[in-house]
Structures are given as C-alpha cells and as structure tokens.
C-alpha cells in the first residue's frame, strides 16, 4: 500500500523540518552552481553568469516554497475536507443530527459524570510525594477478621520489629475546642505520631514539623506541640507569622504552635477537614493512659513501605510479628494484620458500588452507540447512491470508510461536547445525593482528566457506532445501487437487516441486565427503608458537646445533667437526654464483657457494645423498655453499679433465664479507676437498635448510667413537638449560659442520621434505576426503528398480500411478531448475563437474593410489554397500508 511508503516521508517533513530544509537548499544550490558553470563556459563573466542563473530560476525562495508545498501533509487536508463535508451533511439533515447528538450526549454525559465521581473518590492519586508506597496497617481480630484499629503498645512493637517499612505512624482524629480571640470554636483535629508528616513527605510552610521525642508528653511545665492548617491559621490567627511559638488553649490544655501546614494539606483524608495536628502525647497523660493499654484499640496506622517491598511481603512479615505478640500476651484477644494500599482503604466500601455504577452507565453508552449505529444504517440506505457515485468517480473503499468514520467521529465529538455540558449539570445533582461522609468529593469538577475522558469516550463511541455502517455502506455494489437508485434508495438486502436486528437484540439484552439490577436494588432499598431502627427518629435534635475544660471526670455527669435539664425546659421540647454513642452511626464503643458465673480471661471474653446514657435516654429516643426498670436519680456514683442490657444481649447470654438481677462485667470501667472494672447488676432490658447499618444485625449492648460511667464528649438529644431545627439557636443560648466556652457541634436531627445511613444504597438505587429507565427507552426506540424500517421496506410486499386478501389484523400480527421476536431474543440473552452479573450486587442487597425470582420475571415482562408497544406503532401503520398505493409505489 502506497500510504505506508509515504508515511516516513511525511513524518520526516513533520518532525525533521531542519534536515528537510537543508536538503532542499543544497539541492537548489547545486542546480544554481551548474547553471553558473554553464553560463561561464559560454563566456559570461562570473558575476553576470550568476545573475543570469538566478534570473532563469525565477526567485530562489518562491521556488523553495513551491517545493515545500508539494510536501505538505495531505492527511490534514483530507480530514478537514471530511469534517466539513460531514457538518454539511448534518446541516442538511438537522433532525437526524439532533437525535443522534442528543442520544450521544445522554450516554456520554452520564458516563462522564459517573467517571468523574469514580475518579475523584477512587482513582486520583493521593497528593503526597510518597503516595504509591503508603499503606494502611490494620489490626484485625483473628477470629472474626473485624476491627482494623490498633493499640499503641502493639504499634510500638510493630515499629520496633519490622524490616519492611521506612516508617509507620499511628493516628486518630479528635474533637478540639479552641478558645480564641472570639467565641470558642470546635475544630476537627488529628492526634498523630511525630513521624507521620515525614512519612507523607510534606513539610510545614511555616515553623517546623514534630520532633520524634514529642510523642511523649512534655516534661512538667512544658507544653505539647500543635501544627495548624493554613486555613485555620488564616481564619483564626489572621495569617500572623508570629503565631509560631505562641501558646494556645485546646480543650482547656496549653499547647505551643510549632508550625503551619501548606494550604490544602489534609491527613487523614476525610470529608470533614482536619484543621490541626498534635502528637500522640495527648493520649499519654496519666497513669492508666490509653497509650499504655494493649487492649485499647483506637489508632489507625499508616505505613511507608521501603522501596521495592511489595504488599504480600510486608503482610507476611507483619502477620508474623502479630502472632508473636499474641503468644507474648496471651491475656489479649489474638489479632492479625492486614495491609491495604492507602488509596484503596480511603475509598473503602464505596469502591464496589461505584464500579458497578460505572459498569451500568457503560452499558447505557453501549446502547446509545447501538442506537446511533442503527440511525446511521437507516440513513445509509438513502446514501447508497451517493456512495456509488463516489466509488464510480474513483474514491477508494478505504477513502470512503475514512470519510464515513470522520463523519461519525464528528458526530461523536459533537455529542461529547453537549454531553460534557450535561455531565457538569449532572454532577451538580450528584454531589448533592452522594453520602456526605465520602472523602475527596471536593475533587469532583471540570479538570484535564475529565476533559480527556469525555474526549476519549466520544472518540471510542464515534468509532463504535461508525464502524459497522461505514463498512456496510462502502461495500456498495456500483451497478446495483446506481440503477436501483430510482426506487428511492430503500433497497438494501437482508444482510443489512440482520446487522440492524443484531444491534437491537444487544440493546434489549443490555437493557434487561440494567433493569434486573435496578429491580433488585429498588426491592432491597424498599426493604431497607422499612426496617425498624429500634427507635423513633422523628423530631429529635442532636448535637455533640464537650465537657468543660480541665474538669475532673467526676464532675462530668453533673455538667451534662445540667445541660439536659436546660434542654428539656426549652419551649417546644418534650424531653431531653444524652448518650455516648448514637445508633446508626457505627460509632459504637466495643468492649469485652464477662458474664456472671462464667469467669473467662480477658482475651477470650465475648464482645458487646458499651454505651453511657443520661437519665431518660430510652424514653427520649423511643427505645421501649422490655423488662425491669429504667435508670433513676438513685443510680449514682455512690450506689451499686447497674446496667441495662438490650434484648440481643439477653438472648445471647441468658437464653433461658431472666437476666434481671444477673451481673455482667463490661471491660470499660469509666469512673472506677485502673484495674479490673466492677461487676454490674442488670436492672432492665430494652429493645434492640441498629448500631451501624440499617441492614445489619443488632449486636449485644450494655447501657451504663452516665453518673456511674463518666464520659465525654456526649451527644445531647432533645425530642421536640415542633420542627427540631427550630430549637437550635435556643439550645445554643442555653448551653452558652452554662459555659460559653463549649460550642455545639455536629448539630443534626435524628432523621438526618437516618437519611445519611441509607444514602449510599439510595444513591446506587436512584442512579441504577435512572440508567435502567434510559436503557429501556433507548432499546424501545431501537425496536421501534427497526420495525418502522421493515414496514417501509416491505410496503410493496404488504400491499401485495393485502391485495391477495390478507386481513389488516394479520399484517399487524405479522409485524408484532417481528418485534416480539427481536425483544425475546434480546431478553433471553440479557437474562443469562443478568444471572451471571447479579452476584456483583449481592453485597449491596438487603433482604433480596441476587436471583430473586420476582425481579427476574417482572423485569423481562415489563421490557417485553414496552417493546410490544414500540413495535405496535409502526405495525399499525403497516396494517393501514392501502394496497393500491403500495403497489403503485413501484
């Protein structure tokens, strides 16, 4: 092929401009010299010989330019020509172009929008120089594989014994109250190992990083260091550089500002921004501090792998260290270690649903492509004459295919441009329904990656839907098409129809897959929202509140008791209480528990949730009391320790007995000092609540009265008879009147928590249903198109049949059967795929099996009936064909 030989020349002329230029100059110079030689030989003086030579050539530069012209690359010219031709064709068929571009825009727009979310949440690399070596080191309970957080003594042993990390750092987030120039503000902060910032390889823009020895509490009289985020520094310290070295008060304790991080720096990366960092020293105060307890698992651990160390090797070594620790400390629950890339741990549970959605929207795009391909094919028949003329005039088949592909690529890019606008609009909507706790949502937006993706899929789509029609069309037989041209161009053979039918069948198949998926999710979502959470979430305001700075633990219950009393007295309030951890948030505090009469070493005791509650909690939140009594004012620090348990705990540990009057020993012994916590008497049994997911099980739970189990921060609840948001300001005022240094934070209604807990399934369900709807609509358009086409194509045949006595109803049935056949084949194929793919959804389903027979029957039936409707419209047209007109049509 000639084109391949030309390529090196063209490439030369594009990329090696200097070389080509020099060659040209040399070549012309050689000619000029020869001319001069000749003129001199004829007897001219040299100067005149030279002048005559140049004159004969007629200007060296013009000559060179003409030579360059000859080398100019033709591909670009052809392309421009084809694009302009394509645009002209679209202008002549505005209806066709509009339908094609809009369909494409829908597909490309939806795909781009979903990609943008996947990209921001899952794909975009972390903004640290060491990003690809960062991993989470998770400490799991060996028996159950659950957990994920580590204790500080374990962490120290890991750090000392491993050979696979350049360093590991522990961290946790924490709530801080800064008493600044203005009112007290609540800040989200992180308590980290001093080494953390160096693992991330990010340095403060002002001041210094933490020094290794700052992991331990400062000596008496010294203060612990704190590093501020640039945003906090600007907002609260007016960007004053002299802030370095200044003492500030956080949670009533003195800290020294040692640095300011660069703007935008975040670690840990989460939805609520971290505004300050301090060292683990804050947890190391006191004799029985958190950092000394091997059983206190409360830290996340970040590791920086040594260069060249792969995760499996690191994992193997860390598991070894963990099992050695299990042997050395048999009193603790045996644990193991799992290492996960940091990026993966960040996107965590959202990865799977997002990829399912991306797959689903990809299916929609495929259907769109099939639809546009069908549109092009339908138009192709009327363009056969044009193609034949082109071929007759000497256009090669390759050239024709190129031209047709250029047309479809132009169409694809136009669709992509509109689709991009659509995607941006869709993203506005998406950001609002994506669960708020999803990290990195702020990265969603128009950027190079998004543009690149939209451009790429526009091209891919253009090729996908353009290829089949291009080859079909370029295969035109000259004489046939030219002579048949008079029949109005609708003349293509059966092969043509087979391609169109195949396209429609695949559309229907893809639509079935999406419809089944959406059906499963909708059914599961309906089940989920009907789950009883175990309490009444309506009309309850909640907010978090720290205890006053520097107050001893023994004072905490009194403070919260006062706050709750003021809340209950607010106009519009019915009752108020306080709790350490709210249901549905997954923030449950786990503790070992010992059952009376079953003495067990700590390491093998069962686990239950531990919660501390203020009086009236069960009444306020609406948890029913099943047996025994509620806590009373008499259950205080001086009286015998008591607990109320939930029914799950009663069922599990006291299966055939009355738990009232029995004793349990929760591992958490707030208020009773170090050492083994006391046995507590069970005085009541309450209903179960969902501590985590609405779809999850209720775990055994122990409630202790706040007075016997001081806890901070607490979540205050106020049940109202009015809209709970209406009492936020009065509540703020009431708290300020008690302690103006305690800001209210995480102010949310229980309904909001409830909505948030189902926001992820709601997102998947909403989007997948939307995609399925779109898919069904497009597939039906496809069926409609093919049947209408057949009707037009067979008009003559129908006319003959009717002239020979066929009834209109027979013709109608004949056409409907065609449509049904197409849809049924597609549905059968689609069902097979759906059966294979449904298990991908199983983790997202609640109370519905991935092979739910109801869905697998109703979804195809629904599709079949819409397909029937789609073929009925053109079929009716066929039945109305006037035999005389159809026959005369020839």
């Amino acid at each position, binding site marked *: 092929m000639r084109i391949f030989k*030309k390529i090196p020349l063209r490439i030369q002329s594009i990329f090696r401009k200097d070389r080509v230029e020099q060659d040209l100059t040399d070549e012309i110079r*050689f000619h000029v010299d020869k001319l001069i030689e000749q003129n001199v030989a004829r007897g001219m003086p040299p100067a005149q010989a030279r002048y005559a030579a140049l004159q004969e050539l007629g200007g060296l530069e013009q000559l060179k330019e003409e030579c360059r012209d000859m080398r100019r690359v033709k591909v670009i010219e052809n392309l421009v020509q084809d694009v302009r031709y394509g645009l002209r064709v679209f202008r002549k068929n505005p209806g066709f172009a509009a339908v094609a571009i809009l369909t494409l825009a829908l597909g490309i727009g939806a795909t781009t929008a979903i990609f943008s979310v996947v990209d921001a949440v899952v794909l975009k690399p972390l903004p640290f120089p060491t990003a690809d070596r960062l991993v989470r080191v998770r400490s799991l309970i060996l028996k159950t594989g659950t957990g994920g957080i580590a204790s500080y003594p374990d962490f120290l042993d890991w750090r000392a014994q491993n050979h696979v990390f350049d360093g590991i750092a522990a961290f946790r987030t924490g709530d801080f109250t800064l008493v600044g120039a203005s009112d007290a503000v609540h800040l989200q902060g992180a308590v980290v190992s001093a080494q953390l910032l160096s693992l991330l390889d990010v340095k403060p823009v002002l001041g210094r990083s933490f020094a290794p020895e700052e992991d331990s509490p400062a000596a008496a009289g010294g203060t612990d260091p704190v590093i501020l985020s640039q945003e906090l520094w600007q907002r609260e310290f007016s960007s004053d550089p002299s802030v370095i070295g200044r003492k500030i008060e956080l949670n009533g304790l003195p800290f020294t500002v040692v640095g300011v991080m660069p703007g935008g720096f975040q670690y840990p990366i989460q939805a609520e921004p971290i505004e300050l960092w301090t060292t683990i020293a804050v947890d190391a105060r006191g004799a029985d501090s958190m950092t000394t307890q091997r059983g206190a698992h409360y830290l996340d651990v970040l590791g920086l792998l040594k260069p060249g160390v792969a995760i499996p090797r690191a994992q193997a070594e860390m598991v070894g260290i963990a099992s050695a620790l299990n042997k050395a400390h048999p009193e603790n629950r045996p644990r193991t270690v799992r290492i996960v890339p940091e990026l993966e741990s960040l996107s965590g549970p959202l990865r799977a649903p997002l990829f399912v959605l991306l797959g689903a929207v990809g299916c929609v795009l495929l259907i769109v492509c099939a639809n546009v391909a069908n549109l092009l094919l339908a138009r192709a028949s009327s363009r056969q004459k044009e193609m034949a003329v082109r071929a007759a005039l000497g256009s090669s088949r390759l050239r024709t295919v190129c031209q047709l592909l250029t047309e479809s690529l132009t169409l694809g890019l136009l669709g992509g441009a509109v689709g991009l606008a659509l995607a941006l609009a869709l993203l506005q909507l998406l950001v609002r329904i994506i669960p708020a706790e999803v990290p990195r949502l702020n990265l969603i937006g128009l950027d190079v990656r998004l543009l690149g993706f939209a451009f790429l899929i526009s091209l891919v789509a253009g090729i996908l839907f353009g290829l089949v029609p291009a080859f079909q069309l370029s295969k035109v037989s000259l004489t046939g098409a030219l002579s048949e041209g008079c029949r109005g161009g609708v003349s293509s053979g059966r092969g043509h129809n087979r391609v169109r039918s195949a396209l429609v069948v695949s559309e229907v198949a893809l639509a079935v897959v999406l419809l089944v998926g959406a059906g499963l999710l909708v059914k599961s979502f309906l089940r989920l929202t009907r789950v009883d959470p175990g309490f009444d979430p309506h009309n309850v305001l909640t907010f978090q509140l720290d205890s006053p700075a520097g107050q001893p633990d023994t004072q905490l219950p009194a403070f919260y008791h006062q706050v709750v009393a003021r809340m209950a007295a607010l106009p519009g309030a019915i009752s108020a209480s306080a709790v350490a951890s709210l249901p549905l948030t997954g923030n449950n505090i786990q503790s070992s528990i010992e059952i009376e009469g079953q003495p067990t070493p700590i390491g093998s005791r069962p686990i239950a949730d531990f919660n501390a509650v203020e009086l009236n909690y069960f009444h306020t939140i609406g948890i029913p009391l099943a047996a025994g009594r509620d806590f009373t004012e008499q259950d205080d620090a001086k009286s015998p320790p008591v607990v109320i348990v939930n029914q799950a705990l009663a069922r599990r540990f006291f299966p055939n007995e009355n738990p009232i009057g029995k004793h349990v020993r929760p591992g958490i012994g707030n208020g009773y000092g170090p050492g083994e916590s006391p046995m507590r008497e069970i005085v009541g049994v309450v209903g179960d609540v969902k501590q985590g997911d609405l779809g999850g099980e209720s775990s055994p739970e122990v409630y202790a009265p706040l007075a016997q189990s001081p806890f901070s921060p607490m979540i205050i609840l106020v049940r109202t008879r009015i809209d709970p948001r209406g009492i936020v300001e009065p509540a703020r005022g009431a708290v300020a009147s008690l302690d103006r240094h305690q800001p209210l934070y995480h102010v949310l209604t229980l309904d909001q928590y409830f909505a948030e807990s189902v926001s992820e399934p709601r997102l998947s369900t909403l989007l997948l249903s939307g995609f399925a709807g779109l898919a069904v609509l497009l597939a039906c358009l496809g069926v409609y198109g093919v049947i209408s086409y057949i009707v037009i194509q067979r008009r003559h045949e129908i006319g003959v049949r009717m002239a020979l006595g066929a009834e209109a109803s027979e013709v109608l049935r004949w056409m409907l059967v065609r449509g049904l056949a197409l849809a049924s084949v597609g549905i059968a194929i689609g069902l097979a795929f759906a059966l294979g793919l449904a298990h991908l959804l199983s983790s997202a389903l609640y109370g519905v099996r991935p092979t739910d027979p109801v869905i697998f029957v109703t979804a195809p039936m629904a599709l079949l009936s819409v397909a029937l409707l789609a073929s009925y419209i053109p079929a009716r047209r066929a039945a109305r064909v006037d035999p005389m007109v159809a026959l005369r049509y020839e």
Partner: protein
Amino acid sequence: MSKPTDLVQGTLDLLILKTVALEPAHGWAIAQRIRQVSKDVLQVNQGSLYPALHRLEQSGWIKAKWGESDNNRRAKYYALTPAGRRYLDQEQANWQRLSAAIGLVLEIAD
C-alpha cells in the same frame, strides 16, 4: 531554429519519469537530458522542475538519494520506484492513445 515549445500541462511528470527510468539522475541532469533528447525542442522550465520532482517523490513514484556528482559534489539523485514504473507505463499508454487520437482528428481536418 524555432523557439522551444512550452510543455503541455501534465506532460512534465511523464518526461521526468521517463528520464529517470533510464538511470537515476539529479535535477540538473534531468533538465539537460530532456533538452538533448528532444533536440532542444522541449525546454524544461527550471522553476517548475523542482516542485514537480518533490511532488512525484511525495506521491511515491520516485525516490531520492544523496550521491556524488561527476565532479565530486553532493547531489540529490532521483530514481523510479516500482509504483512509479507502473504509473509511467499507464501514463505512456494514455499519452500514445491521446496523441494518436489528436493525430486522427487533425488528419480529418486537412
């Protein structure tokens, strides 16, 4: 001697191809040879020779190589490619048919 005839549009390509078909030659030599062979009747316009050579190279009919000229100077030699050979045969046949046809017409006119 009459004034050298201007080349008929499109025939320059044919003449160049025919000339380099015998042996590879540089631009100067091609111009000289056409003049000599046509006994000074056909004079190649120096200004259109090089664009024509570049166009033919671009089309793949001829390919260029740098070589030494008779007096040891670097010169660009053009040679016919197989594709060029086919094209030449085709064009030569066309030309002969055309000139024969023109001849016929002119005879009738006499």
